[in-house]
């Protein structure tokens, strides 16, 4: 591999620079060197003919679970990073709900050490409270110094209002967000899926939308009170979107993410196989699809529509995957016993592109929500990512906008094969990922690459 890479003839989409046109991109020594029409091939350069493909900055995922240490049977830093590369992600933020929990500078450093040499940049998110127990704050300043880019008790909401208040106050000088999984624990009550007709039909405990909405509203109130920065993880309901929109209009420092699954699937995915007949159709043995069990749960059409609208108008800042790999046995069981979560890194682009193909979202905004928008949320960490600007990290994703493929979860490089999209035909596929100037994933035909 030479230290210069020239990618020629792609449709380059770089929302940060307002670019969407056919041009060339030159990478040199791990940095973006140039982005313009007709760059001449310099000496000692790997040239890639990318005509017909879309080239964007490498995707950034603010929310994923790498499981290491403690749950290496679900995923490791290596397998998770490989999945990222295959999915077009060059930067992924790892949630701290490992065992032990990433709740001090040493464990942040340990993760960064493991990240060395992986095919994606791994940015640690530290726990907001010690052991994510919701009792005492962690040493946030020291963790930021070590490389933490945000704080979260993800998986657990920060239930204590006063502790959340102090977390926001304390972190307000650090330039990183407190990321909250919004869910009032007492309304969750061992819920399995969205509270609604599907839960009722299946005899499963529902999780009401209000469990999320109440905590979204609390977080908005506390952000207003403290001036701190709350980032709301995986928003799933219409009312949440409306609250966030209103808060942003008032200038409250709130940001929010939505996942590919909440943007595209509804609770009916749990009925798997019963199909569009909904409640009129008898359940089959395919019902109780544990692959679609995720927290927050998949909601309704109305919620999906509101989320997509919110993403389009910027109320929802970014798409984040909440990649949550699990072992086979953790899904091969009745619903109540199944783990929450979806292995998402390798299907995220195609899911997000379905919104573009269905004309609900512009390609530019979709790319922005995976690149420059998350980069903005990581701005204070000075990584120079998310745009094809000279001097920025040479992180590039090439994808085939219309390429059809069948999802075969057994072929995931992630250890987590848990995908509700298994067996489905999706449109849009990553064909090349470059991280710091190195090709870390490629399924480009060999004759398109000349060395």
């Amino acid at each position, binding site marked *: 591999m030479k230290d210069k890479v020239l990618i020629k003839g792609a449709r380059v989409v770089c929302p940060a620079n307002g670019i969407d046109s056919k041009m060339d991109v030159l990478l040199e020594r791990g940095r973006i060197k140039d982005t313009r029409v007709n760059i001449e091939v310099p000496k000692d350069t790997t040239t890639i003919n990318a005509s017909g493909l879309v080239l964007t900055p490498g995707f950034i995922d603010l929310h994923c679970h790498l499981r290491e240490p403690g749950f290496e049977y679900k995923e490791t830093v290596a397998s998770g990073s490989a999945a990222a590369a295959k999915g077009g992600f060059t930067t992924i933020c790892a949630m701290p709900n490992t065992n032990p929990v990433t709740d001090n500078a040493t464990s942040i450093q340990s993760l960064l050490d493991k990240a060395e040499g992986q095919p994606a940049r791994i940015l640690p998110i530290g726990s907001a409270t010690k052991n994510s127990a919701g009792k005492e704050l962690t040493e946030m300043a020291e963790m930021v110094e070590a490389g933490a880019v945000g704080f979260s008790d993800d998986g657990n909401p920060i239930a204590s209002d006063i502790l959340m208040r102090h977390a926001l106050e304390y972190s307000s000088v650090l330039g990183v967000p407190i990321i909250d999984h919004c869910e009032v624990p007492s309304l969750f009550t061992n819920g399995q899926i969205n*509270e*609604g*007709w599907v*839960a*009722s039909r*299946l*005899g*499963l405990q*529902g999780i*009401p939308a209000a469990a999320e909405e109440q905590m979204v509203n609390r977080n908005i109130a506390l952000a207003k009170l403290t001036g701190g920065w709350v980032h709301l993880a995986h928003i799933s309901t219409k009312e949440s979107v409306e609250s966030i929109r209103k808060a942003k209009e008032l200038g409250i420092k709130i940001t929010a993410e939505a996942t590919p699954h909440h943007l595209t699937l509804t609770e009916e995915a749990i009925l798997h196989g019963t199909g569009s007949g909904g*409640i*009129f159709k*008898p*359940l*089959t*043995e*395919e*019902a*109780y699809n544990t692959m679609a069990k995720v927290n927050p749960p998949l909601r309704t059409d109305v919620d999906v529509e509101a989320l997509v609208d919110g993403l389009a108008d910027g109320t929802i800042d970014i798409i984040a995957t909440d990649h949550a790999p699990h072992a086979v*046995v953790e899904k*091969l*069981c*009745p*619903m*109540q*016993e199944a783990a929450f979560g979806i292995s998402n890194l390798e299907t995220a682009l195609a899911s997000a592109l379905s919104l573009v193909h269905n004309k609900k979202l512009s390609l530019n905004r979709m790319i922005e929500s995976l690149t420059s928008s998350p980069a903005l949320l990581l701005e204070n960490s000075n990584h120079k990512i998310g745009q094809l600007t000279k001097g920025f990290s040479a992180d590039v994703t090439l994808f085939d906008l219309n390429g059809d493929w069948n999802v075969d979860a057994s072929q995931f490089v992630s250890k987590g094969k848990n995908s509700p999209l298994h067996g489905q035909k999706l449109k849009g596929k990553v064909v090349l990922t470059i991280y710091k100037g190195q090709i870390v994933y490629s399924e480009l035909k060999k004759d398109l690459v000349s060395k």
Partner: protein
Amino acid sequence: MNPHAGIPSLKPATSEIFASRKHILDLDDFTPSEIQLVLDNTVAMQEVIRRSVRKVPALRGRTIVTLFHEPSTRTRVSFEQAGKILSADVINISNSASSVKKGESLYNTALTIQAMQADIIVVRHPHSGSPNFLARHLSSSIINAGDGYHAHPSQALLDLYTIQSHFGGIKNRKVVIVGDILYSRVARSNLWGLTKMGAKVVLCSPPTLIPPDFINGFPKNHPFASVSITHNLSEAVKDADVIMALRLQAERQSRGRLPSLREYSKLYGINAEILKLANKDVLVMHPGPMNEGVEIDTEIAHGPHSVIQEQVTNGVAVRMALLYAVASANGGDK
């Protein structure tokens, strides 16, 4: 297998009715004629039960495993008895005395049972959808003997049979189901069975014990559109032909859904005063086990309107009809 082995009046499954049915997971996928076939064959099975030698060779050479992950008396015993009268080999597995205690997953336990050539697995499990899960992964026939608060089809069928045997039919009979609808698999399967057979169903419960999407009633195009919902028992039982009381679990109080069993009993308990408002030949049913003095008064539970013991007896015959239907639908002689 001789389709009528030892039971002359039995109706065979036809290509339209039952012939392609492998599993019994709930009544939602039963047609009214399938339900009627089970009820008709239950009559034939009752005749066998009344014989002095209660044994016919219908399922000889078949293996039935009952896999019960929850305590049960009547359902497990009646499936066992049903299987034995039909000459099947019946093996009972309960979680307290099996490798489930050692932490084996449902999947692996079920694979083990299948490897032992079980033709039919009768499963009871606290988690909704467990029978669907097993049906998805195993080649044996699965009969749901109660899963979480999803379904209990054999109970609903025996309830239908009990109603039919008293009134000669189910259509247009007013059936009031009272109590914890939210957590009741019996109520859910009965909703499907009763509505398919044309009964007029009324659900009566405190507002905290009904599925949240039921509370405002059902839209016109809903399968339960004909079902009405009330929180007032006196109103509900007016002209009722059947009152079905559901078991109330004490934990509903500790979880904040009810202030006290006392108040529940006062508002929703079946007592003599309430019966006066119903039809004079009203049937009182209960799937058991009962909390006498809570959802039903002792004098009613054991009084002239009660058919609760009859339900148990009918349960054996209904389960014979179900086992026969599933076995004959799946291949006859082996």
